[in-house]
């Protein structure tokens, strides 16, 4: 092996500030960081770095948003998923049903828990197709893990119905979906456990890694609290061998600072999505995200499907727009998935969609001028190719 890469950086962190219209808006978002610093100084003065008061308060506030009895702060969205599966007893030999159209962490969490991911194809709305779940259930199935992709809740009634018939718990991957609702109920409160990420580019974000698991089941909440902190009943007694995955107190301060702004963040993203919808609808080569009157989509990402996607993406980037693909290679076709024996053609909708999807910047600081520029660029691109 030659000298390895120092560190692989997600692409959003490489080029971002070179572009005018991009996905990373963090310097703007944290322009008022002196306020956060003052609050952190209080935490430091108390020496309260691990769990503690700020984390407790954050958890109460977060549970109120998710509409659950409990929220448990953990190290990351990945760990929220992983610890949830462990709290439900998922282990070696078990299967967990999920979607192949997701971020790696969804599958990583299942594999880390010792289980095997069983994929089910998606619908045109990018979410797992509930009609196909039942056929994937085997005696080894231990949980269903739907992903509310892009911030659009899955068809939960159908999923919960299948799950109930087979007595399976449902873990919502709500990493994209804070404040999303389904028939009036919040993402994170729809299944047995809900999992959220507060990665810096999420709608509610902290200055590093952070995650939350939500549940209304007291026993599961207690189990999650044990699992995230070495299985410790108190300083000296360990009930079960368990993990270290805690939301940093300092990050809880950042998160609480943003909770007051969350309504505005969500509304801005929804408004920007609506504006794109409106303007993009007239471009025949572009399909705007599917809408469902019964759900509130919070647009962690705004994903269109388009013709000549790769060329369009290059065109947008060349003109200063940070257009991205989330993600071009489905999970079942990743090199890491070879051991599961899937192949091309197994999930035709997913495999088609990944060649067409493009995410346009939709964050809360986007201006309508910027959105107009994005759409104008798309219009010009297709005008050029059709000429």
């Amino acid at each position: 092996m030659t000298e390895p890469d120092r560190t692989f950086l997600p692409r959003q962190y490489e080029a971002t500030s070179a572009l005018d219209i991009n996905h990373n808006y963090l310097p703007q978002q944290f322009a008022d960081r002196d306020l956060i610093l003052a609050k952190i100084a209080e935490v430091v003065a108390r020496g309260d770095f691990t769990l503690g008061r700020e984390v407790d308060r954050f958890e109460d506030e977060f549970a109120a948003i998710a509409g659950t009895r409990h929220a448990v702060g953990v190290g990351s969205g990945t760990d929220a998923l992983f610890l949830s599966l462990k709290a439900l007893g998922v282990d070696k030999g078990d299967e967990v049903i999920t979607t192949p159209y997701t971020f790696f962490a969804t599958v990583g969490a299942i594999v880390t828990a010792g289980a095997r991911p069983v994929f089910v194809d998606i619908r045109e709305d990018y979410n797992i197709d509930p009609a196909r779940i039942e056929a994937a259930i085997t005696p080894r199935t231990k949980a269903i893990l739907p992903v509310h992709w892009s911030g659009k809740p899955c068809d939960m009634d159908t999923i919960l119905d299948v799950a109930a018939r087979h007595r399976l718990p449902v873990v919502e991957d709500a990493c994209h979906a804070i404040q999303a609702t389904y028939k009036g109920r919040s993402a994170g409160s729809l299944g047995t456990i809900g999992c959220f990420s507060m990665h810096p580019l999420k709608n509610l974000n902290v200055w590093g890694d952070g995650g939350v698991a939500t549940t209304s089941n007291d026993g599961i909440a207690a189990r999650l609290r044990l699992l995230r902190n070495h299985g410790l009943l108190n300083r000296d007694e360990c009930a079960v061998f368990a993990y270290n995955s805690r939301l940093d107190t300092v990050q809880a301060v950042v998160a609480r600072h943003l909770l007051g702004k969350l309504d505005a963040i969500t509304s801005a993203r929804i408004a920007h999505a609506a504006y794109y919808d409106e303007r993009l609808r007239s471009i025949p080569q572009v399909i705007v995200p599917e809408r469902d009157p019964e759900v509130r989509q919070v647009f962690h990402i705004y994903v269109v499907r388009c013709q000549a996607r790769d060329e369009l993406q290059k065109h947008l980037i060349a003109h200063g727009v940070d257009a991205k693909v989330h993600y071009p290679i489905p999970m079942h076709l990743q090199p890491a998935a070879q051991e599961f024996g899937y192949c091309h053609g197994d999930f035709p909708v997913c495999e088609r969609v990944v060649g067409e999807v493009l995410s346009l910047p939709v964050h809360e600081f986007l201006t309508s001028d910027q959105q107009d520029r994005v759409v104008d660029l798309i219009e010009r691109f297709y005008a050029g190719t059709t000429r």
Partner: protein
Amino acid sequence: MKVPFVSLDRQFRDLQDELTAAFQRVGASGFYILGEEVERFESEAAAYCGTRFALGVANGSDALFLPLKALGIGPGDEVITCPNSFIASAWVIVAAGARPVFVDAAHDYNLDPARLEAAITPRTRAVMPVHLTGRPAAMDEISAIAARHGLAVIEDAAQAIGARYRGRRTGSLGTAAGFSLHPVKNLGVLGDGGLITTDDPELFGRISLLRNHGLRDRDHCSVWGYNSRLDALQSAFASVKLKHLDAWSDRCRQIASLYRGGLEGVVEVPRDQPHEEAVYHNFIVRSEQRDRLASHLQEKGIGTRVHYPVPIHLQECARELGHREGDFPEVEAQARTILSLPIYPELQDEEVAYVIESVRSFFA
């Protein structure tokens, strides 16, 4: 006088300007995951420990867990460690799917190399000696036995950053090492953090993948991995603190020597061997009247702790390993008699003198 066992606010007061500058810089950058700040701290830490590579991870447990996974240790394997450590030392072995095999401690609280060979079986894959209290384990003896049996040596250096063994820093003494940057550690950040050091480029490459979802690049996942990264913000704090670490370690050794001078003959005190330079994450004294001594000190306003009152093999979570009282007599005897006195660089000489006087008054 009140002498708290831990007083993190004192260090923060001293470093407030530097830490605030780091906070402002990272905040304004908008880069919070991996990136420049993390890489800078990683190169500084590697240079400090004298290794080719260092990797920032989410916490000290992961700093031990990820090297085990990267070495391919899993179900059916055994890893040898000490039962007198923080629970995470054994946990990481269980998390990797392997079985922790304990070896009793020597009188210095570290793994007794004389008992190591008897614990090795055909299933043993690695030895994970703990540098407990910041004192390096008997690495020459351990490494020689490990080499004879083809075992990896992973240093559990969670408490021992900066300590030296025959002139070399902990972190550079085995196949790989895991450090904790938990706030109360000698190099502590403002939250959870961990650090892995190694000279092995392959191991480094595998751990780099494992800590970041197994991602080869943004779109390709070569192996299902974990999410275990040291936050950029915490890396910036760690860089600030690393510059002060040697001075802090010197001060801790000075405090240790004050304690030794004042308590020799009253309670049993730890001492350095000529070839070791401990960093005194903890200063542990021993007394048959430990519990009464602790209450006495508490009445005097002095915070103490026991590291650790229940050995890992007797924890509820370890039941499935089938141990019982008497399996590790040295560790069990230690657990009944050890007491950790306050020790941190900001502790004042008057406070040290007060602790000494208070211990002496108990026995007077």
